[in-house]
């Protein structure tokens, strides 16, 4: 078997911005002293006059992006998820969300796969925060192909979008030739009848692996990739839950307020179904390699498999 190519979705973000910048004069990329880390540095190289560094001032960057949007520009506001969604939450809420301005928030370094920097920089709360803002679209792509497509879709969409990217290189499992990104539409990666795994971001390929392990035990799992957490593809999730009767969610985020909560919000109202939420169990992360952390917090295939087995007991 050939080695799977790995690319961090933050790289995809930078590369997609360069391509968009080649075609669109109204695209402006902002960063708060994190051009290299958020990978907007490649955009700066290609389009220096459209790259704005505001210094370490995320609240101000968010407002500047809003101001640019009021003049018809399409700003991509780039920082770490911790600061984009955390520090600048109220600016995102009041200066972008409330007036529904056409600002794209490119949040990199989301989740525990930040790794060695530790809990202060590992944002497991951003999806929860962004979900509460009316009209905010939230996209958490799973690989390079999906991430680049998501950035382009976010540009085409008029309105605020929160794009969530990771620091660590993750497997490229989508085939660029056939992949189609549709905002708000989940993707069934594997059909099954015994339970549904709804995954997002880097837990998607891990969930596929877990499904293979479950198959060895005679359990036929359906795997759904939810790249758009808001608006959620409720139709797809309800149809799958109706078929399997059991749902597991997997995300590199707190189980409070993230994909798991979004799925529960939907199912509890429309089709009450037993749900197991896999994610950060209301704890902070810690320093360590991304792989070690993903393993410790049971977000890898083995961890997901074990938690599902427990759930099925």
């Amino acid at each position: 078997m050939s080695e799977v190519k790995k690319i961090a979705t933050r790289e995809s973000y930078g590369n997609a911005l360069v391509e968009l910048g080649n075609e669109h004069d109204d695209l402006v990329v902002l960063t708060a002293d994190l051009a290299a880390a958020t990978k907007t540095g490649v955009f700066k190289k290609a389009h220096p006059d459209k790259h704005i560094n505001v210094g370490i001032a995320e609240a101000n960057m968010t407002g500047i992006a809003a101001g640019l949007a009021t003049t018809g520009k399409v700003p991509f506001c780039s920082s770490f998820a911790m600061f984009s969604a955390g520090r600048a939450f109220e600016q995102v809420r009041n200066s972008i969300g409330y007036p529904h301005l056409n600002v794209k928030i490119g949040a990199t370094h989301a989740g525990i796969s930040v790794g060695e920097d530790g809990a202060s920089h590992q944002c497991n709360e951003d999806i929860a925060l962004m979900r509460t803002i009316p009209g905010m679209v939230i996209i958490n792509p799973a690989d390079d192909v999906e991430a680049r497509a998501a950035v382009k879709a976010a540009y085409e969409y008029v309105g605020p979008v929160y794009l969530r990217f990771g620091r660590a290189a993750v497997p490229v499992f989508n085939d660029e030739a056939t992949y189609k990104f549709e905002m708000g539409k989940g993707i069934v990666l594997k059909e099954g009848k015994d339970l549904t795994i709804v995954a997002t971001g880097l837990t998607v390929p891990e969930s596929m692996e877990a499904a293979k392990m479950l198959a060895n035990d005679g359990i036929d799992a359906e795997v759904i990739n939810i790249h758009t957490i808001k608006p959620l593809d409720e139709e797809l999730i309800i149809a799958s839950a109706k078929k399997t009767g059991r749902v597991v969610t997997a995300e590199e985020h707190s189980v409070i307020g993230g994909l798991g909560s979004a799925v529960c919000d939907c199912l509890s109202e429309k089709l009450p179904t037993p749900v197991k939420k896999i994610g950060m169990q209301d704890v902070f992360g810690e320093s360590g390699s991304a792989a070690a952390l993903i393993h410790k917090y049971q977000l890898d295939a083995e961890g997901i498999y074990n938690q599902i087995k427990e759930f099925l007991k």
Partner: protein
Amino acid sequence: MNKLELQKTANEIRKGIVTSVHAAKAGHPGGSLSCADIMTYLYFEEMNIDPKNPKKEDRDRFVLSKGHCAPALYSTLAQRGYFPVEELTTLRKLGSHLQGHPCMQHTPGVDMSSGSLGQGISVAVGMALSAKMYGNDFRVYTLLGDGEIAEGQVWEASMFAGFKKLDNLVVIVDNNNLQIDGPVTEVCDPYPIDEKFKAFNFHVINCDAHDFDSIEAAFKEARETKGMPTAIIAKSLKGKGVSFMENNVAWHGTAPNDEQYAIAMADLEKVGEALCQK
């Protein structure tokens, strides 16, 4: 407009402020009255705008960073012809386009939603930056409270504006010396305000917020200033024009009752009559 016409217009705008806040039984009259002359000058003299085409692309922009003074903005916009003056009495009521704080999606002429202090200046900086990046000529004005400048974001925005030499940006500080909890010097002393903006690479002008000669000179100087943004520190009187509201912190966020409203309007009618004698 000559000075007398500006004074008369400002007086009408003050009546609209008092009338709308009275009708709403809530709102912020003190800081709205203190900035009424500045607002008058901006919308009747300074800014390139068209009430018939509120979203005209090359228009000058205004961001009310001290968004709680929405009554001043609404009354000014109504006087300028963006919407009927009669609508001012719907302020803060269910279904009105006149929200408690400015909402750009609902009210014609409002260039940015605001209300959470410290944020408007960043948005104004973004607008000014856009004009510079894309070679547009429009200018951007933003009005801040002197209490508001305690927000750290104000200085993030100022540092960037000074660094980027945004000479199409004018930051006005309505320096009425009072904030909700008392005199600004007792809450968290912001002085010296002018020196602070100077340190952030602004051209700084001190002016009298209730003297149209002083206001005119300030905006003229701002327009002539190249290579750096301008900050106008406008020394004002909170509650200006209404006897019992002047320099009284109690009127920061309180609406007059019927009796007080009658006195307030009588005060303003008297000013109006005096202006008509001129």
